[in-house]
């Protein structure tokens, strides 16, 4: 079995993404973003996309790139505060936005990938998030029913992977990637290091290859940092 392709462009060609597709993406802020796939998607010109992603990138990176070119019609996210292009398109009504609590978003994606038809969560009970949704009292506590999310495609970024699709992540770049990987009808993975099967200890695999359809080694410049924070010289800091 060989799921390896040359690059993001070939992965997108094989996946045959059409206008109007729903894509679930890993990443948190600018960390663990499937950046090669996002750039290639921009270059492909497909439009009217629904993107499920915790954040919307910044103006000139991440999903901000696809907002600039107006390829995204709808975003499903938990926090979108770092992007002026987003703000402009949202306020003008060009962009449809569904804000979802972060834990609910992760669990909806998890449910979508795991074949679960929905779940009851205490998150958002008594808030606008619960409006129009079923509320059920379970063991004395109120819960709101949330629906699963599944994508036509999922884009994920990992640190290491092999041609069978097994993936290992690095530090907090893991974030939404393992759940996103499960929730695409077709899942595309980009990795910093494509290694031989067997080089990853089976005990260390985070995303088993069954969830991945195409994999390639991406090309990466220096990683971007959204908020560079340092401890004061000689002191501690949060």
């Amino acid at each position, binding site marked *: 079995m060989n799921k390896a392709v040359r690059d993001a462009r070939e992965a997108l060609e094989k996946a045959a993404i059409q206008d109007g597709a729903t894509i679930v993406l890993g990443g*948190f*802020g*600018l*960390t*663990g973003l499937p950046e090669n796939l996002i750039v290639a998607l921009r270059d492909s010109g497909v439009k009217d996309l629904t993107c499920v992603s*915790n954040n919307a990138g910044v103006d000139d990176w991440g999903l901000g790139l696809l907002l600039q070119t107006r390829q995204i019609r709808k975003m499903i*996210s*938990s*926090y*979108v*505060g*770092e992007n002026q292009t987003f*703000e402009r398109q*949202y*306020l003008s009504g060009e962009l449809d936005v569904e*804000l979802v*609590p*972060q*834990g*609910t*978003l*992760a*669990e909806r*994606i*998890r449910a979508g990938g795991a074949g679960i038809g929905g779940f009851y*969560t*205490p*998150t*958002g*009970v*008594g*808030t*606008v*998030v619960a409006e129009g949704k079923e509320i059920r009292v379970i063991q004395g506590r109120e819960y709101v029913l949330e629906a699963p999310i599944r994508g036509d495609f999922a884009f994920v970024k990992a*640190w290491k992977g092999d041609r069978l699709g097994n993936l290992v*992540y*690095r*530090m*907090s*770049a*893991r*974030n*939404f*990637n*393992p*759940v996103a990987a499960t929730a695409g009808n077709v899942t595309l993975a980009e990795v910093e290091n494509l290694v031989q099967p067997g080089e990853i200890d089976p005990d260390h695999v*985070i995303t088993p290859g069954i969830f991945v359809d195409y994999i390639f080694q991406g090309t990466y410049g220096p*990683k*971007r*940092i*959204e*908020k*560079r*924070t*340092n*401890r004061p*010289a000689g002191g*501690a*800091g*949060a």
Partner: protein
Amino acid sequence: MDPSELKKERIVRRAAQELKDGFYVNLGIGMPTLVANYIPPGMDVILQSENGVLGVGPYPEKGREDADLINAGKETITVLPGASFFSSADSFAMVRGGHVDLTILGGMEVDQEGNLANWMIPGKMVKGMGGAMDLVAGAKRVVVTMLHTSKDGASKVLRKCALPLTGRKVVNTIITDLAVLEVTPQGLRLAERAPGVTVDEILKATEAELLVDEVVEMPV
């Protein structure tokens, strides 16, 4: 330090007293993050960051930042020995599942029933709730840190929140520059007053009804 910084430092110092040995704690973005600077020496507190880190350490030294290692505020961090990384789904299993002992987060409004509003102002650009709704719904204890009044002097401690809620009946304790307030089944209890602040001054600055019996001075 200017007066508003002093007020915030007082809040942060008092909030640090909510920490207990062995606690798993999630600190919100902004003022709550600073609580980490006041963990008493020798106390074992493990910080969770909802983007997928347990065992958050200090900010890195200059030049030692790693783009793959950030907190939920997207700030570069380090981790302590014994740290772990996990997915967002696992992270919120910790949060919703009641495994996080304490969350300290900021507030725009809190009311006497323990309702919290801290994520949106109608008519303004909405940035999203992030993990706040999950944290207040799931953490064992919810402490809100905020200035007692807004810039124009209006009380942020209300009879009823006017802004859209982050959580309903979720707050346990409110720590402000003026007071510490406890949400009890009987109502909102004035537990502590800040040094140099009288009970009358607190009552004047508070729109909510307060239960006033024994009020001690904030030990900061």
